[in-house]
């Protein structure tokens, strides 16, 4: 035993003590060595960029705080030699940058819109907030109406003809209620009379084109009366025909009818608000109105275009592709020029509408083409099995799209939709070229103000407005990254 133990080499039976890593590999020193001074080249880069960064930060601080003027009533405050930021100008101009030329005593209306928008948008963006469906409905239907009412002042004075046409269209839609409730075959069988009456109304309407326009009002002519009566009868019969079993379709139709009439009445009603014409709007208000209208309008149009582009029907596909590629091939500014100078030529003589509305149409046309491509990307990301599964279950095209495919496709494309919204938000600045005053436009106009004409007013103005745009866009891009991470859970490995 002793011999063998003396023959064996030394065997260690306890673990060697763990030594601390070399001091220059851990802690601040280690991090600095590894990430900033790992090699000679890296050290040079660090020194160069570091001094550049320090210089940049110093310049910004120097401009914004150290050399800045803080108080004053006019340009005299900012006339000093080598002046930094001219903050009194920002204080004086900020209301204009936000509200444009909106009457000062009416600005509470804009504020109310901002508050309502924020109150609806914030819970919408929080994944955990409840009542998402109601939130979406409020945000996409009630909020735009409220904004329209508050910003313009309402009291649109719709004429009788608009009411008659809207009601007629809704009554005509009633003829489709049995078709929607029972399917086409049975719907027709149940509602022959209603459909025939609706068809007769359309024929009479078409005939009225031959007789020429008939004035409506004091001398109520026969044709419109006849059309409305026919449609009313058709609607009553159609609703009666789908009474047993089609209740959800009936109530859906009734809600739409009631909602649209209520909206028209509200917009028509005189709440005593002073009307504010759109040329008086401006600043951030217009930027937000244009970008939000653009996104809200482009989403449904974009979905329709994307579905059209993936459709089996050759004509539909060709038309969608042509529209999308045409719009994506030309700059926004030409589309805006088209809607502002060509559109009035396309419409019947006498129709004259608002410059802002024309810009809105241009922006909506433009962004829907881009939205269509975003949605198409989402549609393509959905595996074919989902489509096939839906078809195997016997779902119709509309059911398949609305219940199976689109919810998944839209969810996948949320980050890209937000990305699209960011670029739309930045693109709204282009409306200043066709003579509207968005945030940037009002800044450019304000810089010509003799009251504040100093060397430092342009840098100050651009700095502040750029910061405003940056906060919006950066916030949105962070939100998009956040959603992407949140939605990505299912696929993470």
């Amino acid at each position, binding site marked *: 035993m002793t011999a063998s133990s003396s023959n064996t080499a030394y065997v260690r039976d306890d673990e060697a003590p763990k030594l601390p890593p070399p001091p220059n590999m851990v802690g601040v020193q280690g991090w600095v060595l590894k990430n900033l001074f790992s090699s000679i080249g890296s050290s040079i880069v660090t020194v160069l960029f570091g001094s550049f960064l320090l210089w940049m930060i110093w310049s910004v601080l120097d401009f914004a705080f150290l050399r800045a003027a803080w108080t004053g009533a006019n340009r005299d405050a900012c006339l000093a030699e080598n002046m930094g930021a001219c903050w009194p100008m920002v204080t004086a101009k900020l209301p204009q940058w936000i509200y444009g030329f909106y009457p000062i005593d009416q600005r509470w209306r804009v504020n109310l819109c901002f508050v309502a928008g924020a109150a609806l948008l914030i819970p919408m963006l929080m994944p955990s907030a409840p009542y998402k469906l109601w939130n979406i409905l409020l945000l996409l239907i009630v909020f735009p109406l409220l904004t329209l009412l508050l910003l313009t002042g309402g009291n649109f004075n719709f004429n009788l003809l608009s009411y008659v046409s809207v009601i007629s269209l809704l009554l005509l839609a009633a003829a489709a209620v049995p078709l929607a409730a029972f399917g086409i075959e049975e719907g027709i069988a149940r509602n022959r009379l209603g459909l025939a009456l609706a068809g007769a109304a359309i024929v009479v309407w078409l005939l009225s084109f031959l007789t020429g326009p008939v004035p409506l009002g004091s001398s109520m002519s026969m044709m419109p009366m006849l059309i409305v009566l026919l449609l009313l009868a058709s609607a009553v019969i159609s609703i009666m025909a789908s009474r047993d079993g089609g209740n959800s379709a009936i109530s859906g139709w009734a809600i739409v009818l009631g909602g649209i009439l209520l909206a028209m009445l509200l917009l028509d009603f005189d709440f005593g608000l002073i009307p504010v014409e759109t040329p008086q709007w401006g600043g951030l208000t217009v930027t937000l109105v244009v970008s939000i209208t653009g996104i809200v309008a482009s989403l449904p149009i974009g979905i329709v275009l994307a579905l059209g582009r993936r459709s089996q029907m050759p004509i539909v596909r060709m*038309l969608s592709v042509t529209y999308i590629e045409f719009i994506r091939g030309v700059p926004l*500014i030409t589309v805006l020029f088209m809607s502002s100078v060509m559109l009035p030529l396309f419409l019947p003589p006498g129709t004259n509408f608002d410059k802002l509305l024309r810009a809105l149409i241009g922006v909506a046309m433009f962004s829907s083409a881009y939205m269509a491509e975003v949605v198409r990307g989402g549609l393509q990301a959905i595996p074919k099995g989902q489509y096939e599964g839906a078809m195997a279950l016997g779902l119709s095209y509309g059911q398949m799209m609305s219940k199976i495919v689109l919810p998944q496709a839209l969810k996948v494309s949320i980050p890209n939709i937000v990305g699209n919204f960011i670029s739309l938000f930045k693109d709204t600045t282009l409306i200043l070229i066709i003579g509207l005053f968005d945030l940037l436009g009002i800044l450019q106009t304000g810089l010509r103000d003799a009251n504040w004409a100093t060397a430092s007013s342009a840098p100050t103005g651009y700095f502040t407005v750029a910061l405003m745009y940056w906060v919006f866009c950066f916030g949105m891009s962070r939100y998009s990254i956040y959603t992407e991470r949140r939605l990505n859970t299912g696929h993470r490995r």
Partner: protein
Amino acid sequence: MPGSFSFLQEQDRITGLIQGKGMSMTVAIEPRVVPKVSVWNDPKIRAMFFQAALVIVLLFLAYEIVANTISNLQRLNKDFGFAFLKRTAGFDIIQTLVPYTSASNFGTALYVGFLNTVLISFLSIIAATIIGFVVGLMRLSKNWLASRIATLYIEIFRNVPLLLWIFVFYSAIRQPLPDARNALNLFDSFFLSKKGLMVPKPLFGDGSWIGMAAFVLAIVASIVIARWSKSRQEATGQTFPVFWASLALIIGLPLLGFAVAGFPLTWELPALKGFNFSGGLAVLPEFIALFLALSIYTATYIAEAVRAGVLSVSHGQTEAAHALGIGTSSTLRLVVVPQAMRVVIPPLASTYLSLTKNSSLAVAIGYPDLVATGGTVLNQTGKAIEIVSLWMLVYLSLSLLTSLLMNWFNSRMKLVER
């Protein structure tokens, strides 16, 4: 061969079975019950009906638009047509690449604008690509500070509208500069003022064609050398410094050509005449501002594309290259970049397209591009439809051309799969 014979027989038997020959049992084939599909539910008929309705509605809309336009134009005493392009323009353009005076016609004015659009887009694309690649690679740098500064650059420039950047650069360039009389003077040949940067203009005398020809020759020779070097490397494995040889050729041959011709190149110096400069080449402040804004703004998108492309090349590729003993720079050039390019090119193509379209923002600061000159023509003639359709046609063709080029390039770079 008996084997093949029996095989044929077997084949025959099977065919017979399939055709029903030699089957003793007869199967009564019942006609397949085709479920009666109503006309309403037949997808083909539905599709035809729907498309017909769509076409009718669109035709009606088109008819309405045309009819309205005709009646509107009549009411405004205007006519439709491109004859106005031959009329005298009567306005000046501050930057012209082809001879143009206010006595030229509207068509020439638009052509000048088009060339200016092409010039600014081309130069900005080059600059944006260079900045974008540098920033994109910097973002991936191991140096923490470098990657943070690249991120900062991207986040700052991308989240503010391009138009605002154009205004910022324009005002930053214009404001601190002196007016023409007190221009910053460098060697009496470069002048920097509110009128822009004045540089000497090269005047090519007789015989400069020899230099030009030598330049073309040098390019051709470089291509030939590259081909030869590639085939030699494939055959023998020996490499040849193609880059340096081509550089020497492209610089040396034209110089030699000019030397042979006796340097027929003279410079026209700009000189102050009254309130403005005459002679020389003027680089407009509008041009500089637009160029800077377009390239710096677009570079952020290119940087993101480059970063995504490099990240898409798996780390194993780099490690494998190192294991084979390939050096760092060669790994980057021969292994990583070719694979990254596949991912980079499609977004790069759309970025180039959007840069070309964004160059139309020139109108906001008065750089005479296609949209700005077109806008002037529109104001003078009132030909809204003609001008807007010309714009759209030109930009559409530019877009189409760029995407064709990029598609061709993309198909060349694509992974060849079996």
